[in-house]
């Protein structure tokens, strides 16, 4: 597996898995405007998935398509970070997860706009516009709910506590990152951490939320070494039709 292919899977699986999670809200959000906004976020993420996994399939050169990669791989071949596969739980938890991802996503895409691989830079530029908007929205909602009622504050604090241990993985570099960074395809994600911490600090201050002290990080998603139990259930749903009717075209 080439380092470039692996990197593209990481990008595309993040957006695929998170897009799927967000799409689960469709028709069930607490406010009509939020229903529309969540569908919009999911739609953007699925669109980005088509680009990342499309390029991954092309780079791999084995005749697979983006759909093959999305619908015919099992858990151990997925490369999304763990944060994105965690279940929605309540609306506050969903938006906290979104914010923690969006902040990383925007920083990453900003750097990828300068990628030495023009195809990567082109996708990043297109996605960056969408993700900047996602970040604005998720940050506003985290602030609004954190600095809302006592109840909403408590729910947002517990969402942050619960999700914080999944943040660190997004910044951990391995040999795949090193190789790609040497080629100028991508940056070493650890370089993004300082900027990330500043963004998160500012938003959590406005939200009157306390960032947990610990830097403990669950890992195993982006290298596929140990996903959570949640991913398999998501894939069982998502991949049902292509798996049950392998010869069908849709």
């Amino acid at each position: 597996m080439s380092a470039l292919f692996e990197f593209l899977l990481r990008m595309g699986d993040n957006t695929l898995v998170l897009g799927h999670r967000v799409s689960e809200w469709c028709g069930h959000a607490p406010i009509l405007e939020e229903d529309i906004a969540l569908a919009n976020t999911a739609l953007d993420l699925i669109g980005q998935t088509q680009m990342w996994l499309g390029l991954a399939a092309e780079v791999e050169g084995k005749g697979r398509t983006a759909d093959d990669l999305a619908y015919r791989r099992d858990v151990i071949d997925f490369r999304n970070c763990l944060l994105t596969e965690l279940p929605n739980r309540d609306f506050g938890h969903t938006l906290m997860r979104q914010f923690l991802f969006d902040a990383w996503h925007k920083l990453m895409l900003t750097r990828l706009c300068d990628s030495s691989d023009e195809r990567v830079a082109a996708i990043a530029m297109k996605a960056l516009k969408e993700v900047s908007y996602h970040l604005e929205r998720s940050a506003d909602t985290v602030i609004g709910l954190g600095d809302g009622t006592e109840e909403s504050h408590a729910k947002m604090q517990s969402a942050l506590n619960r999700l914080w241990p999944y943040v660190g993985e997004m910044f951990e570099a391995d040999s795949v990152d090193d190789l790609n960074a040497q080629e100028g395809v991508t940056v070493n994600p650890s370089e993004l951490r300082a900027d990330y911490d500043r963004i998160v600090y500012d938003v959590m201050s406005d939200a009157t939320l306390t960032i947990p002290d610990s830097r403990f990080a669950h890992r195993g998603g982006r290298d596929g070494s140990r996903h959570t139990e949640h991913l398999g259930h998501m894939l069982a749903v998502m991949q049902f039709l292509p798996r049950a009717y392998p010869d069908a075209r849709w």
Partner: protein
Amino acid sequence: MYAQMIKSEGGKDPSEMTPEEVRFQARIDAGEKIEPKDWMPEGYRKTLIRQIGQHAHSEIVGQLPEGNWITRAPTLERKAILLAKVQDEAGHGLYLYCAAETLGVSRDDLTEQLLSGRMKYSSIFNYPTLTWADVGAVGWLVDGAAIMNQVPLQRTSYGPYSRAMIRICKEESFHQRQGFDIMMKMAQGTPEQKRMAQDALNRFWYPSLMMFGPSDAESVHSAQNMAWKIKINTNDELRQKFVDQTVPQAEYLGLTVPDPDLKWNEERGHYDFSEPDWTEFFDVLNGNGPCNNERMEARQEAWADGQWVRDGLMAHAAKKRARKMAAE
């Protein structure tokens, strides 16, 4: 259609009308649009709230049967298309609630009425979507039937409602097309897919015909609503139009409409077809459709679970206002 059996609050004989009411009717007859600030009979206002509200609720509850398949859409493209479609329906709900608000009722108020069962939504959304072909059938038949009703409603007498319809109609043709496109893939696919397509048509044909409501040629409610131009065609006219349009499409797909008496009538220039089972229709309206409980529960849960979110965001907005005032 999304507003069924709308009871009219009017029904006055012209000889009993006040001068204001006569002038009002004359404006409608002249094709003028009534705007929120204009004088209007109380019955017109109430009937419109009922109709637009029911239409809005249908858009919102209508997200659920298709939403049921978003997480199982079989390709990335299908998932994106379906998400966009269901998102459009939420947007339609929003336009319509806004139109209703111009009549002096709030969105929250309408929502409470839906959740307590005092207001209805279209019977069609109480049917389950069981296979992927159902997603195709809903777009093809349900959006198809909705278009039949919504296109003429663009000319309705109430300005905000008419403008909402114009925006909605722009998006509806894409909805129907994506549904038909799914049906096409299914009908031309593997034997299993073809079977799903036929089964979906079997299950959605009569419920789609019911969307137009029972015959209202004799109904005084219907006559008044037509005089007010908040209803443009009779239920039978629209149903016939729908059948005439849909039967050739089913033939093109190679699917069989589940009506042994369906036949082209050369003399009338229309298809003859069987009436749906109106007992079933009234059962569904009275809460005994296959999914009434699930649909209402889903909306009630979304509303109840979202209470803390709405409260939190409102409290934050109030704090922000207060801080701004203090700073000034």
